[in-house]
């Protein structure tokens, strides 16, 4: 393959979620030329995902319509002539020295060189493994929300939502307003823990008010809320036909004999989030352990510059924070990058920095409230697959740990966990929890899987390998999942 000269831009932004869009609009208004890349067909990211059929007007469930509207206002900024939005485009590699991104879209492979790169890759939802968690009909809570928000589609009739944190309650209200039956909302925190931790939010009456308003709606609709419980099993042969929940002790350990069964067709899970940090880690950007959310994220200074010159990060990639944080950080990062290139951004950066710190403080309080509990690892009995792609069981993982494995990278050669096509995005965080539970090491000492390019599987020829016929393309013709270069 003859290397082609890369395209060029002043500021390249990976991700068209709230952070990336805010960064792009800010930098373009300052006069910079900006290229925004997103793997999805449409901009908006997770929170500001827009309906594909309509403008999300009054026919939408009330609680969704306002978010859709807010998102639309932000996204309108993308029509600025200084912004080149490239959807369906995966940034699969990054070179820190030359500030070059390798791109792949249905039109083929390209490279893009920028003077500044802002990484706004968002986050992934987290689930814990339990018997039956791979059955069709077990979905992430956000995946259920996306069907509703983007497609006006209810992915089931009778739902059970399980996990911990505010997203579950929000998703439950949205599903209800759309006409779903909710058999139960299963929250890991006990009622007392829930109320005690809500008290930490007293300084943020807005958040507290929103939280209680959501809860109130669920109570009014008589949705059974099972505090201090967890999902313990999904029932069904080829798809979900029921769920078993269990009470947990203070460590999250399920209490035998406390099983309750529900007839449901859909189970929605959310046990928090993991920041998407593959590209920053490939670039060599320093990572830090976010104590509030107990996850690794990308470190930056107050100007949102990472440890690598020319690369900035904003939004969830640099730590869980929610949509409001993402927008403020996007504005700040766009502003800083534009100013470094000699433009005059429209924002007072000091004002933005203050707003950012306040919003981050609220997010930190929320994170502390809803951390995972180590006892949940007991749900992954030895025969339950932890790595969904390679079907590596919890038993195999525990055996490897007994043989001395203490880091995820050491697990790969032992078990193949994390070597499948999701590249450890779904199991990585939970494997860290299992290693911590088995070894007694603090979570902060257990590193995520090493990130390698390509960040998602791409056809071999994209990375310079032999060209395969598309009609015979298999996973072995992809790099990044089952493929070569992943050892």
């Amino acid at each position, binding site marked *: 393959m003859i290397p082609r000269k890369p395209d060029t831009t002043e500021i390249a932004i990976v991700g068209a979620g709230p952070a990336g869009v805010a960064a792009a609009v800010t930098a373009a208004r300052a006069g910079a030329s900006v290229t925004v890349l997103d793997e*999805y067909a449409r901009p908006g990211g997770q929170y500001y995902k827009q309906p*594909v059929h309509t403008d999300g007007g009054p026919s*939408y469930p009330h609680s969704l319509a306002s978010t859709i509207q807010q998102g639309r206002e932000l996204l309108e900024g993308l029509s600025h002539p200084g912004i080149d939005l490239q959807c369906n485009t995966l940034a699969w590699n990054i070179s820190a020295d030359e500030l070059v991104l390798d791109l792949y879209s249905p039109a083929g492979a390209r490279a893009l060189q920028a003077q500044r790169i802002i990484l706004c890759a968002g986050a992934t939802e987290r689930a814990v493994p339990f018997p039956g968690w791979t059955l*069709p009909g077990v979905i992430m809570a956000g995946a259920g929300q996306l069907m509703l928000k983007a497609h006006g589609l209810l992915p089931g009739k009778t739902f059970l939502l399980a996990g911990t944190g505010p997203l579950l309650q929000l998703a439950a209200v949205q599903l209800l307003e759309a006409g779903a039956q909710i058999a139960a909302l299963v929250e890991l925190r006990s009622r007392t823990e829930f109320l005690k931790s809500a008290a930490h939010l007293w300084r943020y009456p807005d958040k507290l008010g929103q939280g209680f308003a959501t809860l109130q709606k669920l109570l009014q609709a008589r949705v059974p809320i099972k505090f201090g419980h967890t999902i313990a099993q999904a029932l069904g042969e080829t798809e*979900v036909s029921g769920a078993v929940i269990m009470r947990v002790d203070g460590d999250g350990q399920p209490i035998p004999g406390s099983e309750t069964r529900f007839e449901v067709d859909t189970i929605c899970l959310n046990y928090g989030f993991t920041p998407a940090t593959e590209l920053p880690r490939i670039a060599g950007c320093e990572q830090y352990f976010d104590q509030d959310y107990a996850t690794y994220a990308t470190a930056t200074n107050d100007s949102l510059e990472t440890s690598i010159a020319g690369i900035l990060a904003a939004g969830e990639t640099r730590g869980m924070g929610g949509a409001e944080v993402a927008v403020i950080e996007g504005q700040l990062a766009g502003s800083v990058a534009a100013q470094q290139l000699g433009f005059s951004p429209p924002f007072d950066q000091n004002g933005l920095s203050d707003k950012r710190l306040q919003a981050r403080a609220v997010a930190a309080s929320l994170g502390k409230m809803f951390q995972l509990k180590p006892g949940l690892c007991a749900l992954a009995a030895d025969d339950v697959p932890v790595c*969904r792609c390679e079907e590596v069981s919890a038993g195999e993982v525990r055996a490897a740990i007994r043989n001395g494995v203490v880091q995820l990278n050491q697990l790969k050669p032992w078990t193949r966990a994390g070597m499948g096509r*999701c590249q450890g995005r779904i199991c990585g965080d939970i494997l860290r929890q299992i290693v911590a539970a088995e070894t007694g090491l603090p979570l902060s000492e257990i590193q995520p899987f090493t990130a390698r390019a390509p960040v998602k599987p791409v056809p071999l020829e994209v990375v310079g390998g032999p060209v395969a016929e598309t009609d015979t393309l298999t996973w072995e013709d992809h790099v990044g999942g089952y493929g070569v270069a992943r050892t």
Partner: protein
Amino acid sequence: MKAQRISKIEHGTPVSLIVNGQEIQAQAGESIAAALLAAGQRQISQNSKSRAPRGYFCGMGMCFECVATVDGVPNVRTCITEVTPGCVVETGS
């Protein structure tokens, strides 16, 4: 289990696609996964080792459990790929 299209929400122009040889109705702009769920097809792929059924899970292109062969191209994530009129989808591998 069929996913329900919420009746009061306006939906897009109807398009049809061929799934495992059968014609199904979808709406322009929606993802192939949405069309499959609305047609009652929850199993989209199978695990390569155990052959256990897998379906729509993360909804955001991360888990690769919703992959199907689309117009001859295998391993396409149906949750982030929009339907095109007449597209041919083979599930279950």
